[in-house]
């Protein structure tokens, strides 16, 4: 079974971001998407810590500790960028001004519930950051994750067993096996990776999937 690697998932997702979009890339895996955004599109990247217009990583030695993203990595600023404080930054998120945010996930339910902040382990130290704000705030919430856990369980589930980040908030899921839209009437497969038959994807996923006319 051919699977996409992380970079390929990022590249696949990046193709769907249109020219002119305002986008927040979550910490970790989603940050990869920045490297694959089409060069002929102007896409404005937002970070929760008060910046719009993030550019590429700085050259080694050119880092500035006052210019970082929400993952606390050094970044650069494009022409047209701007700075603002944390309340304004989350006002932007919560007020539905971002066109897209991209988040990692432990699980996504058939209703679009998202679990990505807490494993549920009783002794775990909880930490949420800005994930809950992004989950309810962005116009389109895109999830990027592997389709299966290490032991082969589907991360697309009937009901999240991990604590929720947001309820009914995910719009589209990009995995190493497929692209799936979350709609009111269920999950619609938009695209399947490689030669994987729909029935096999359905078997691996467990929860009911609908086949789009355009899907293999």
């Amino acid at each position, binding site marked *: 079974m051919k699977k996409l690697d992380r970079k390929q998932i990022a590249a696949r997702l990046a193709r769907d971001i249109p*020219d*002119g979009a*305002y986008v927040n890339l979550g910490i970790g895996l989603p940050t990869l998407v920045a490297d694959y955004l089409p060069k002929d599109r*102007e896409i*404005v990247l*937002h970070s929760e810590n008060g910046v*719009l*217009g993030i550019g590429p990583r700085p050259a080694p030695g050119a880092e500035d500790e006052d210019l970082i993203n929400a993952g606390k990595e050094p970044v650069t*600023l494009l*022409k*047209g*960028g*701007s*700075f*603002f404080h944390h*309340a304004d930054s*989350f*006002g*932007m*998120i*919560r*007020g*539905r*001004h*971002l066109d897209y945010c991209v988040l990692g996930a432990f699980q996504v339910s058939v209703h679009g519930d998202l679990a990505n902040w807490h494993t549920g382990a009783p002794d775990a130290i909880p930490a949420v950051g800005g994930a809950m704000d992004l989950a309810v*705030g962005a116009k389109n919430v895109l999830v990027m994750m592997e389709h299966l856990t290490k032991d082969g369980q589907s991360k697309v589930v009937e009901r999240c067993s991990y604590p929720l980040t947001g309820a009914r908030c995910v719009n589209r899921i990009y995995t190493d096996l497929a692209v799936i839209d979350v709609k009111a009437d269920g999950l619609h497969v938009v695209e399947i990776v490689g030669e994987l038959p729909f029935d096999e994807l359905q078997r691996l996923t467990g929860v009911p999937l609908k086949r789009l006319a355009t899907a293999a």
Partner: protein
Amino acid sequence: MIDKFIDSAAAALADLPDGATVMIGGFGNAGMPAELIDALIAQGAKQLTVVNNNAGNADAGLAALIGARRVRKIICSFPRQTDSWHFDKAYRAGELALELVPQGTLAERIRAAGAGIGAFYTPTAFGTRLAEGKETRRIGGRDYVLESPIHADYALIKADRADRWGNLTYRMTARNFGPIMAAAAKITVAQVRETVALGELDPEIVVTPGIFVQRIVRIAPLRRAA
């Protein structure tokens, strides 16, 4: 490529429909988007709900819009002025609904819309006629009134400089309602004194980031006789 510059005020308002809620910036003449209001009058949309601090004065701008019977309702803090005769007449004739809101509550309700807040408790107006019928709540020994966000379809504002991404700076007290209205409206149209190349606005001094602005029209300031 992102290019929010529009050639004319008329083009920037062409799709504004009847029945729209329109925020109009400005406090006195400072920050009043006079040319955009003129374009709105020429455009013809009617049954508008207008959000502004005042209700127009003399015979131009918002007063003219009211005089042309294009406003169904006005949400403002201070409609009564010595020269607000168009408003006064329409109001007394029962042709125009008025929602009177304390100025700070007006600003906060606009801000709440842009920031995704569902409702908030403010101490302003508690115990007064303007809180009658509203939900109240005692919090930490102080009394508060529950208030809702004001969303708009369009915001017409005046800024100073803009780049093609829609980043704005303002000039002195002309800033007033501009930044919060820009965030509260689906489509924000800013008239600006000057457009500049991308990168010319210092990112530290951008007041309204471009994400809140959809259309920009440059209106050259009038040359005044010396």
